[in-house]
């Protein structure tokens, strides 16, 4: 069975669904027996969710206005 360190290295790739067949199988076998790495997996999901949450940083109305005006000026040139 692969070691924890190896398993942890593969977690994000596993979540990206881009691990190849053998490596995926080895990881799943490891996760089936290792509570620690299941914790790591759960945490990896939470970190990823946190990053995704920030996709739409609200834009301050003043900055929105300035950028809108900039686009207009650019378009009218």
């Amino acid at each position: 069975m692969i070691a924890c360190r190896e398993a942890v290295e593969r977690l994000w790739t596993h979540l990206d669904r881009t691990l190849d067949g053998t490596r995926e199988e080895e990881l799943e076998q490891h996760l089936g027996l290792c509570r620690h790495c299941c914790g790591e997996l759960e945490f990896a999901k939470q970190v990823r969710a946190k990053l995704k949450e920030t996709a739409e940083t609200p834009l301050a109305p003043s900055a929105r206005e300035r950028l809108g005006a900039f686009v207009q000026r650019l378009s009218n040139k």
Partner: protein
Amino acid sequence: MPRSRNKTDTGERHMGMQTAAAESAGSFAALVEPHLVYLYAFALKLCGEHATAEDLVQDALVRALRAQGSLRNREQPRPWFTKVLLSAWSDRSRREAAHDQDVALEDERFSLFDTLAEEDPFPYSDRLHLDFLDLFDDANLTAALQRIHPAHRTALVLAYVYGYKAREIAELTDTTTGTVLARLHRGRKQLEKALWEYAKQRGLLKGEDRR
């Protein structure tokens, strides 16, 4: 009323000047508008400062207007805008000083998950790891991201904030998929360490900066 007549005159003159060129320029505004908030949010993640992000978006818009001919898919221009913004960002970050703040990567074994379990910053919590992540609002997370090497940060933000696939990131950043995968790997390691060090240094763990 002379004043309103003037207004009408100006309006008519303006309408009269709408040549084909002006129309195409007008359509540039229409093309950009739906993506402005995204471009700004993306720029802010890359550079970490509001004023710089605004500058960067403006720079990208000027480049986009000039390069409109290279836009093939007008129905879905977002990847194209992303690429233009990235090229503006890459020129800028090349110009700017060395990145002193980059998280040292020597310790490849660092695990944020284990560090939290060992240091136990919230002894009464039964959701320690989530509590830690909750310390990071948008501004804190953006600030922590700035400690990551720019190329790694760019890949990380494209992949995990905006959901681009590795081969798409390779295309957007003019590199190979292998390089992107390596950058993502190192970027994730740096992110773990950056979050931990940022939280410690900014006193987030002691509740000093909590809202």
